[in-house]
């Protein structure tokens, strides 16, 4: 028996059939192509027929159900912003983005990234998704070391903290988040504001100043500190920038 090939084949089948838009396994188009796997004849026969077994549907449904639960539990802002599109958005995500982990954070980051990059959604919805993604990463990053600007030795290289982000919003954050909390209509996209989301902020986010946005942009690549300026110090205190070795 070639256990490794059988595991690969079964994992491929589960991934394919767990997608909400999975093709009908009874059609030739819905049959998984297993030719590339080095399977015994028993294994090949088993994998070719397993998709028709009721227990296989249950197996795939378990994966799908847990993925939905993780998205529902971890992405309330994005789902609220999506409104009537929420179910189709989750289905599209499950169909197009393979499962990477059984943990909540990677699933929520995957879903919010998907919505933030999907041009078919309203700009405000995409911004909310980008914001929620940044929040999730900032929370996850709270366990990592942060550095402060109090005494940076000469020659320190600063870089962006991997759990921090600058998120452009198309409207005032208070108006946007107020609408989400009250489940009211999203405000007009007429007051662009950039917010800083970082693990060192007590509330995880705050509006960013133009000078901070400039410094964030300037640190797209790690950069030698020449005596931190006020905005750089503010970004260090927020945990948005850090010493390069801290970021690893």
């Amino acid at each position, binding site marked *: *028996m070639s*256990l*490794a090939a*059988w*595991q*690969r084949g*079964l*994992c*491929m089948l*589960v*991934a394919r059939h*767990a997608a909400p838009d999975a093709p009908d396994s009874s059609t030739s188009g819905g049959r998984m192509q297993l030719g*590339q*796997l080095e399977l*015994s004849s*028993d*294994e090949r*026969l*088993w994998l070719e*027929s*397993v998709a028709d*077994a*009721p*227990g*296989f*549907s*249950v*197996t795939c*449904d*378990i*994966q799908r159900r*847990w*993925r939905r639960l993780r998205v529902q539990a971890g992405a309330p802002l994005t789902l609220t912003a999506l409104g009537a599109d929420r179910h189709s958005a989750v289905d599209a995500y499950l169909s197009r983005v*393979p*499962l*990477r*982990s*059984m*943990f909540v*954070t*990677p699933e929520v980051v995957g879903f919010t990234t998907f919505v933030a990059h999907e041009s078919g959604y309203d700009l405000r919805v995409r911004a909310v998704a980008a914001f929620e993604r940044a929040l999730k990463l900032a929370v*996850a990053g*709270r*366990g*990592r070391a942060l550095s402060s600007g109090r005494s940076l030795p000469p020659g320190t290289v600063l870089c962006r903290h991997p759990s921090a982000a600058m998120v452009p919003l198309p409207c005032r954050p208070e108006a946007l988040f107020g609408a989400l909390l009250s489940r009211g209509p999203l405000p007009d996209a007429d007051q662009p504001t950039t917010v800083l989301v970082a693990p060192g902020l007590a509330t995880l986010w705050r509006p960013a100043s133009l000078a901070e946005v400039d410094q964030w942009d300037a640190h797209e690549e790690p950069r030698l500190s020449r005596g931190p300026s006020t905005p750089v110090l503010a970004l260090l205190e927020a945990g948005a920038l850090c010493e390069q070795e801290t970021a690893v």
Partner: protein
Amino acid sequence: MSAIGSSVDYFEISPDVFCVDNATADGARSLSWQVDKLQDALHRTADHPVVVHGLGLSIGSCDGWDESYLHILEDFARRRPFEWHSEHLSWVTASHPGDTPMHAGLALPLPYTDEALELVVPRAADIVQRYGVPFLLENVTHYLPPLPGEGETSPLCFWSALCDGSGCGILLDLYNLYCDCVNRSIAPADALEEVPLEHVVEIHVAGGAVTAGFLLDVHSRPTPGPVWEMLQSVLPRTPNLRGVTYELLDEAFPTLGLDGLRTQLDTIRTLTREAGR
């Protein structure tokens, strides 16, 4: 936990639950602690011994187990020594041809074959050596048709060879075994005959729900009567048993309630006392 502290002898902790998975698109992953949650759990369980029950090791994956889980386990052991630890005899990941990692999203079974033994025995032996406390593997349930190669080795021979070859013990999940019995029309007594009970160190009981005609392993309900009967049956025959654990999902606690949880724990206590344990 404080409300049931007097009803239990130990708490079972899954370190994975207190972690964040820093997974990347290429599948590389590393677990890091959600420090607040971990500290809270350690504080709440400070007055009791703990045992560890892992979820993500994937000891049966041919393409490699999850090293990040072992790193977390090592760190956890430094923070809180544990009496024993356990994992599932299963696999959750495989590599796509071309080495793209794939995740099944649930514990999938290993067939009872020599090839599976050759894979798992050295891994389990390594873990037994590494931590110096008993390491147990749990029987999982599944909903698939009989696996290819099934029948090559009986469950009894497989589990005996696994335990003898690696030094690991068995975490006998009676609810999982009961799911197998219901879903495949096996008599519970026959299923228990296929377990080398002398290797059982811990027992799990739980309850779940039926979906699409299958009894599922979801830890959402009180333990069903037949599982209590199975527990009664095995208690006198498990000389190395050290604990019986009731499993319940966080999300199911509001439905069961504190009184319901106490009833489960009291039933375990009563049955173990009746068996002279």
